[in-house]
Structure formats: structure tokens, C-alpha cells
């Protein structure tokens, strides 16, 4: 049976919520609001509490992938001596920055990212984000503050927490000095509560993939996650996810499922291949397969303790899954796989995200053995079509699904 994607009724609301975000980002300067570039895993609640607009260049990176602009943008950066082997988000971002400069006056090239007043990378996810932001900071001559997060280590945990907390204090001082705005702790508590609410709602959304058959898939979640990344800490995220949860409850009541006739359930690690989202959704959908979970979409699960606002920020962000080492990451994956009752998993050796895919081959072996389910490795860049070969990948996915199907 041919797969037919059912659109969400709240699709328009999502579109508007994300458009509002981009409009506010682009209009911030005109309204006298400073723009801070931040990375996805950054204690952004502080910024919203101080009326500093947090902008996520990774979103631009992903959008360039979806709109198939990565190669074009990357080539601009490559002409300057940057390498095509970097993370595609950084390649696109650098390409846009230099491309805008080269094409100054030609209207339709850029303008998709607001210029930063402050650059606030954290290295919880990776180092490339910091390097990209550093180059940008030099280019625009703006200050950079790296939120440094060493990988969690049991015997170092107390000093790690102290280190991160001290950096939060340093960050507040840095923000106050650079923007002249003061942090109001009461306001921060409000933001933290909004953030917790949004995370809670987001996790309710994800739970609808636990249903058998799933009500939503990972492909949906990758799109639906926009507001939890950008609007976390603001009422916009809460409003949108409240509506989405309602819609999903309706879906459940009327027994609407994501993939008709679902036979196979899989886990995916971790970022999707943006330019091929529809291809993958249809490929799996047509084979009665739902991708039901991924640590990528399950990242946003903060439960802040507003009684200790700064401490709770420090601890919550440090404990993001990407900041753990092999064993703990494996446990987290296994937990999700069990909870969502998957029949197998797909790990992408994403050229872009070297740090987070470096150990996936061994993880695959460990998890297969522990859970007795098969895993498959893909080799594809998440954005750059130069590092994606559809033919061989499709063949391998076909045989993988056949193998799982034959076992069931």
C-alpha cells in the first residue's frame, strides 16, 4: 500500500510560529534588541530572560540542506581556503557570510541570518560550532563567549559542575557588560518554567510514537521540533505544543496513524539527511516502516528547578546526551529502543558530525548484541549532496528491511 503522509492540522500554526521567530530575528536590530548567535545546546533561558534574542545558525545550516543550497554555499567558503570536509552547517554559514560580502548590493543572495552582536557557542555538542562562530566573531569584530563543557566524568563531576556554574556567572556578567541589560532572577524563573513546560509538552508529543502503530514518526518530529529549539523559554513554544498535543490526542481518538499497516519500527541516529527528508519518509512509509525514535529529537527534556535557577541551568545543560561518553550514550539509546519497541536501528556515519558518529560502529555491535536486534550503518552527509550516494544506500536499506521482515 502506498504511503500517504497525513498533514497536521496545526501545520499552519507551526509555520507561523517559525516565521515569527525568523521575523523577530531579522527585525531585532531595528527594535534595539541585541542578537546573540547560540548553539542548539546552550542555556538560552538566560538570554530570553534578558531580552537578548537568541539566534540558532544551526537552523540555517539545516534549512540550507533542506533547500539544497549547501554545496553552493560551501563552494564560496572553499574558495577562501575552507575545506569541504567540515560540518555542513558551518560550511553553509561561512559560505553565506562570505557570499553576502561578495555579492553586496545584489539583493537576493543572503540576509537569511541576522548579524550577531554576540557569539555564544557551547562545545557540549562539538568543537566545529565554536570554530565557525570564532571566524564569524572575527569577521564582524564582535565578542565571543565559549561555554565550555568537558565530557561528563564521574570522578570529576563535582568540579565539572562547579566549573559550569562559574561559567554561568561569567556569562551573566559578560551579557550584562556587553548589552547593558541586567538579569532579573524572577524573570529568569518565569522563563525556566516556560521552558520546562515546553519540554514537557514536547515529550508528550514524542510519546505518540510509542503507540503501535505510531501516530507520528521521526520524520515528523524533525520538523515539529523547530519551536522547542528556537522558542524554548517563551510562550510561543508552549502555545504551539499545547495545540499539537491536542491534535495528536484527536489523532489517537480517531485512530489515525503515521504509517498505515506499520510492520517495522526503527530507531535512527541522529540528524536526518535534510535534503532527502521526503525521500526517506516515503521510502520507509512505502515499506510499512516507522522510524519511531532518536536521541536527536529526544534531546529536549529539561526539567528546571526554578528554586535554584543558575544551578539548574548548569546541571541540565551539562547532562545533555551528547556530553556523555560511550557507555552512557549506549544506555540512553538502548533505553529509548526498548521503550519504543523497535525491531532494529539505523546509525548514520554522518561525515558532517564527526564527533557524534565516531564511535557508532562499535555502538552498533554492542547494541545489537545486547538487544538481539539488527542495526545498519549508513554513510551520508546530512546536507552535502557530494557526500551522499542514493543508489547504494537504497540497496542497503532495502536488504536491511527485508532481513528484519523475514525475521518477524
Amino acid at each position, binding site marked *: 500500500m502506498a504511503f500517504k503522509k497525513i498533514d497536521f492540522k496545526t501545520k499552519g500554526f507551526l509555520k507561523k510560529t517559525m516565521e515569527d521567530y525568523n521575523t523577530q530575528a531579522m527585525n531585532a536590530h531595528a527594535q534595539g534588541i541585541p542578537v546573540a548567535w547560540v548553539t542548539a545546546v546552550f542555556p538560552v533561558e538566560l538570554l530570553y530572560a534578558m531580552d537578548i534574542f537568541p539566534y540558532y545558525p544551526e537552523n540555517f545550516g539545516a534549512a540550507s540542506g533542506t533547500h539544497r543550497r549547501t554545496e553552493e554555499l560551501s563552494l564560496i567558503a572553499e574558495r577562501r581556503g575552507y575545506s569541504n*570536509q*567540515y560540518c555542513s552547517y558551518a560550511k553553509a554559514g561561512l559560505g553565506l557570510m562570505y557570499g553576502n560580502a561578495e555579492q553586496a548590493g545584489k539583493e537576493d543572495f543572503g540576509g537569511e541570518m541576522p548579524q550577531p552582536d554576540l557569539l555564544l557557542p557551547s562545545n557540549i555538542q562539538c568543537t566545529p560550532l*565554536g570554530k565557525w562562530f*570564532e571566524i564569524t566573531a572575527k569577521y564582524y569584530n564582535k565578542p565571543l563567549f565559549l561555554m*565550555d563543557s568537558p565530557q561528563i566524568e564521574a570522578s*570529576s563531576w563535582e568540579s565539572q559542575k562547579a566549573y559550569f556554574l562559574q561559567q554561568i556567572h*561569567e556569562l551573566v556578567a559578560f551579557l550584562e557588560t556587553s548589552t547593558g541589560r541586567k538579569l532579573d532572577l524572577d524573570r529568569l524563573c518565569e522563563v525556566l518554567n516556560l521552558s520546562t513546560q515546553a519540554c514537557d509538552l514536547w515529550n508528550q508529543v514524542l510519546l505518540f510514537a510509542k503507540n503501535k502503530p505510531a501516530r507520528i514518526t521521526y520524520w515528523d518530529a524533525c520538523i515539529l521540533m523547530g519551536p522547542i529549539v528556537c522558542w524554548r523559554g517563551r510562550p510561543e513554544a508552549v502555545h504551539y505544543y499545547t495545540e499539537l498535543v491536542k491534535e495528536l490526542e484527536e489523532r489517537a481518538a480517531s485512530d489515525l496513524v503515521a504509517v498505515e499497516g506499520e510492520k517495522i519500527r526503527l530507531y535512527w541516529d541522529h540528524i536526518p539527511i535534510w535534503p532527502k527528508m521526503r525521500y526517506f519518509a516515503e521510502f520507509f512509509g512505502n515499506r510499512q516502516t516507522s522510524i519511531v525514535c532518536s536521541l536527536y529529537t529526544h534531546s529536549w527534556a529539561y526539567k528546571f528547578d526554578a528554586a535554584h535557577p543558575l544551578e539548574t541551568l548548569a546541571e541540565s545543560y551539562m547532562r545533555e546526551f551528547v556530553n556523555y561518553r560511550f557507555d552512557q550514550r549506549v544506555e540512553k539509546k538502548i533505553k529509548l529502543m526498548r521503550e519504543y519497541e523497535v525491531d532494529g536501528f539505523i546509525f548514520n556515519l554522518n561525515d558532517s558530525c*564527526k564527533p557524534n558518529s565516531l564511535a557508532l560502529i562499535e555502538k552498533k555491535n554492542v547494541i545489537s548484541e545486547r538487544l538481539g536486534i539488527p542495526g545498519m550503518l549508513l554513510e551520508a552527509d546530512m546536507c552535502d549532496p557530494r557526500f551522499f550516494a542514493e543508489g547504494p544506500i537504497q540497496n542497503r536499506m532495502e536488504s536491511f528491511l527485508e532481513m528484519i521482515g523475514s525475521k518477524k
Partner: protein
Amino acid sequence: MGETEAIELSITEIITRLNTEITDYTGVKKWQEQTGGQAVGWLPPDVPVEIIAAFGLLPVAILGSQAEVKMASAHLPNYVCSYMRSSLDLVLQDKLNFLAGLIFPQGCDAKKHITDLFERNSQWTFLHRQLLPKQLDRPSSRVYFAQEIRRLISELKRFSGVDPTEEDYRMAVTGYNLNRGLLRQIVEIQQKKRTLSNEQFFAIVKSALLLPVAQCNVYLAEIIDAVSAESADETKIPLVLSGTIVESWELLRTLDEFGLTIVGDDLYAGYRYYNQDLLLDEGIRDPEERIVAAVVKRHYGQIPYSNYFAKDLDKKAFILDLAARTGARGVVFALLKFCDAVDYDYPLIKEALAEQKIPSIKLEIEFQSAASGQLKTRLQAFAEIIRGRGNGI
């Protein structure tokens, strides 16, 4: 003439002996047989070897291998630098079993994540992750770094059952300070005279990372005697080398072939290792706190490293200054493939060099790659550009 030849021979002789000692960790294994002592592996950057030595343990750097990678490819995606790939291969082939343990600095993303694979595929009961703050500007950085050095000491105590005395620390520091001082003397002579080939020079640096320090110091002193007697070789072109680690001996030989001599570098398996002594502050009474403070002080006076963020520690400025100080007439970027963080810094430095009319060349190197015809052609052309300029043509 005859005299010069005799000295030439003697440098060659010393280096030949040295090479025998550093190949396949021969010197380390001999030391183990003779003393019954334990060796602990470490990787650059920024592991304080003096502390390991104070415990009576022999610090031995793991510097990968140029041999064909046999087993690591089944464990790693293809986008991991060849230093890490070949080092993991050594583990998988049981070639590092002579080590009692390993100290792994989390200096870059690749190291951070590959440590897990080292741990999973080895038998070591002691595998210490040395966490390194990546921002160096703010007070929190030093506090945390100091804590990490304390943690290293306490883990070493637990592992070895030894509690070093004040004298143990002092002796270790003295030995390594002497070693680093001798290396600096050699590079300074090299800057003036360019007597040693690149291959010889980097074999010397490597010996400091691999051999028992006292033994290495004897070699270094002999080398200094031998090179001091030499006259300068003005035909060689002085260059700066930028990167992390150079184990591509083919590259070094090719540079030699075209009369290009490295007189300054920013490698972590190079100048970063030996550019400063460890200075004990006698005002600090507690011997442990004294060494912690010394390591912190050295760390925050280090040269730039692309994986660290510091406002005033600009790599571009450092390279320009290094070129000026050493009289280098060009810069070779020998960047390991997939070593992204370092690669990100390259374009802006290249641009700045071009503005100053300093020729530069970027080579993408791998531990296993032999010198290709293309590499030779490029380096030859590079040498010609510099020579052309140098002669005012």
C-alpha cells in the same frame, strides 16, 4: 673539509643510535627490562609528563604509526585523522601492551570520542581521561584546570600506590626542564645554522617524547656538541611548519630534498611540548600544590592551539611572529586530513601571510601517505618561489 665530514658522520651516528632507540619503543622496553619499572602512555597535548615521572613511572608518548592500518578501519568511520586511526590500530594489534596504562588528554573532538574505543579494546586498568578546559580567558578555566591536575595526581596515586615526595617532584622537574632546555638549544642552533636535516631534527624531538629523560638528555647534549662545531648552511631555506604532529617522514625527506628546513613550528608534538620549563614556586610549601601551580602557570603561558579559545592568543599573530623571529622565508601548513579544528584556522592565517608577502603552502598529510609525485612537484615549485624572491629575481 675532512673535519667537517668527521662531524657530519658523528651527527649521523648519534641520530642512527637514537633512531634505533625510538623505533618500536626499543628504548622504553630496554628501560623496563633493566629497571623493572612501569611505563605509562600519554598523548600530546598538555599532559604534564613531570608528574607521571615523579611517580617513578616512565611517560611514553603514543605517536601513532606510519605502518599500514590493519584493524582500526573495522572500528572507525573513514573521517578520523590518521594519528588517531593508526594509534587505535596499535592498541588493536596489542602493540601497546607493554604500557601499564594510558593518560588521554581530551584535546580535540576526535581524541575525546576515540578514548572510549581505546578503553574498550585494551586491557589497561588505568586509563585516565585528562579533561582540558577549552576556554582559557576566564578565571573559571584555571580553577578547573588546576582541579584536573589534582585529579590526575590522585588517580596516579591510586594506580601506583606511590605518594611522591617533594624530592621526587623536584627531580622529575629538573630532568624534564633540562630536556626541554636542550631541545630549545637545538632549535636555536638550527635557526642559525640549519645543520640538521628535518628528518634528523624531528627524530630528536621524538626521542624526547619517547625515551627515559636521563638517557635522552645524554643524546641531546652529544648532538649539541656535534652541531655546534658545524658551520651554517646558507643554502637551505628556513621555514615555519604549522600543524599538530608530523609523522610523515616522507614529507620531511621531501622538504630536505629541496633544501627547505624547518626552523620553527607550532606542533603539539613539537615546540608546544618544549617551549617552556616548569617553574616551581618555592613560596608554595605543599609540594603537590607547588607542582599543580607550576603546571597551571605553564599551561596558561602556552602557544596557541586551535582547539582552545582565547581572545589574546591569536594563532595568526603567533605564526607571523614566529616567522619573523626565526627568519623563516615561508610557512608550510602540514595539516592532518580530518583535523578540522586546526584546518578552520588556516584560511585567515594564509591571508595574513599573503599580505606580508610570506609564501605559504598547505599540504594535507596522512601518516601512511608516501610522498606522491604531486607533493614533490608542489614543494619544488614552492622552493623555487622562495628562492626566486630570496635572490631578488
